């Protein structure tokens, strides 16, 4: 430790070897100590409930009903996980969520890219108007579509199908993805397109051979950001899907609330842990791309 001791006692959490040997810094001030403690506290508030969720999923029912909620479980059990799989159609719910997420993502990426290409690269006279039309979808809440879509779906027999969820999910996510693709397409130099045009490539070949291959990173970002919202969608699934076989994870979880509101909490928490794992893993592995996407989504508007 190269710095002299701080005027007040520092919490143990601060690593003592945090100073690079060459760039000697001032001793940690009261301000920076306080801000670290504050950050630590806020992070605990953000993360502890999730840790608690996991710990509870490993408790025995008896331990859960009688024990102190903050205490560590007296014995660990995987029983709750077994019961979670018995109670609901967990595998089916996961499969359905996959189908809906994939379906919506394909539409969002493909159509988003096409629209951004038309707006940003091809350009046309009313492009400003079309752009502002798409902006409406960012501001307007999804609830406006529930009643009309419910009525329309029931007239054309689309209620209780995968498309009934996929269409509105993709539709409402489209503006943001068009926006992200457009701002990426801006960075592709015009000269690239002009050179390709001189070589005789038309708009379709340019899209397929230049724009599409260059957009891979943006595609990853768009898919990641949208997957969070689609995987977790409750409102469209709850409104348009009735049959057990089509229920996605958010609806499936409701099965764990038994008759008279009596809930098997430890099994429910186990089920919650199972269902959040896929997204959580993807998030932890790819969080750089995701964070970048979220940042650029907001900071350029």
């Amino acid at each position, binding site marked *: 430790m190269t710095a002299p001791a701080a005027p007040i006692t520092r919490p143990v959490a601060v690593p003592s070897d945090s100073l690079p040997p060459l760039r000697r810094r001032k001793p940690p001030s009261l301000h920076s100590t306080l801000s670290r403690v504050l950050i630590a506290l806020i992070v605990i508030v953000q993360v502890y409930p999730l840790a608690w969720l996991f710990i509870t999923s490993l408790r025995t029912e008896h331990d859960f009903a009688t024990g102190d909620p903050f205490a560590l479980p007296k014995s660990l059990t995987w029983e709750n996980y077994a019961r979670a799989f018995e109670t609901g159609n967990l595998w089916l719910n996961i499969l359905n969520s996959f189908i809906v997420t994939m379906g919506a993502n394909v539409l969002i990426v493909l*159509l*988003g890219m096409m629209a951004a290409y038309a707006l940003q*690269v091809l350009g046309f006279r009313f492009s400003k108007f079309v752009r502002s039309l798409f902006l*409406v979808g960012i501001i307007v809440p999804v609830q406006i579509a529930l009643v009309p879509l419910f009525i329309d779906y029931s007239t054309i027999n689309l209620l209780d199908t995968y498309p009934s969820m996929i269409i509105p999910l993709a539709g409402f996510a489209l*503006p943001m993805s068009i926006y992200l693709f457009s701002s990426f397409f801006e960075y592709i130099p015009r000269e690239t397109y002009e050179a390709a045009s001189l070589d005789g490539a038309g708009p379709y070949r340019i899209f397929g051979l230049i724009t599409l291959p260059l957009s891979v990173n943006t595609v990853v970002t768009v898919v990641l950001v949208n997957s969070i919202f689609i995987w977790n969608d409750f409102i469209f699934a709850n409104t348009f899907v009735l049959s057990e076989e089509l229920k996605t994870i958010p609806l499936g979880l409701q099965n764990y609330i038994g008759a008279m509101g009596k809930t098997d909490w430890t099994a429910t928490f186990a089920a*919650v842990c199972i269902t959040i794992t896929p997204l*959580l893993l993807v998030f932890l592995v790819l969080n750089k791309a995701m964070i970048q996407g*979220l940042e650029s989504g907001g900071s350029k508007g």
Partner: protein
Amino acid sequence: MLPNRSRLSVLVFLLPPLLLYCVAVLFPIVQSMFLSFFSWNGISDMEFVGLANYVRMLTADDIFWRSFFNALGYLAICLVLQLGGALLVASLLTSMRRGRELIKTLYLLPAVISTVAIAFLFVRIYSIEPVGLLNQLLHWIGLGALERPWLSDINTVLTAVSAPEGWRFTGLYMLIIYAALLSVPQELEEAARLDGASRWQLFTKIRFPHIMPVWITTTIMATTYGLRGFDIPYLMTNGGPGQSSELLTTYMYKTAFSSTDFGYASTIAVFIVVECLVAVGLILFLLKRKADA
């Protein structure tokens, strides 16, 4: 514009996305406005009632006004937690040297989790029998007198259903604000520091004005999301007890799908849209003016 493009190619690329967007978003908006002038339960004939639904909503429906004010309270709590919390953590984070990436990731974690899971989790956190985290914590720090069933007490339920939504998305807004704070020119800050500016002055005179455009975007995002909040209150209390945690969105949902009053539900839906547009306009007006001043 691309040199060799044809009018047809524009249409080929533009029509499919526009079609999906019209089917899912634009057409339903128009349809809602249309439906709001009718009385219809989905089965019998539609009956044109003109502005009667609007008159009923604005003058004769106590639950509507109750839900409206609840929604404003819900919004206020969400905004304080999301924007206030985000700004606080983002500014603290800029003065940290290590572990920023880790904290960003941890802080964003709740945003990845489904609202149903969060609703379950918080029902347990608030519960009193068996004792949940919140009541136990209050007991420990000597505030045992405050222990209560948070979700069935009409005085606390609105706060209790708003907090999870705020908690959930703080990380998202923090990321955006943090990215903006990093873009504040270092020379500017150095110069101000040499002139003897305090941390607070540095923040109010240099940093915050610099991130103003992003702050406006974030405020608009958080406000429109707050006004459309639905899942967590619906799942935790379904608007109850009584109407003490009813929001416009949950009220609209129940009107449509429990009372099958599609016309009146559309009227409320149109109101929610207008409310969002007014809110966005108001934010732009107020914050832009402040930024120019």
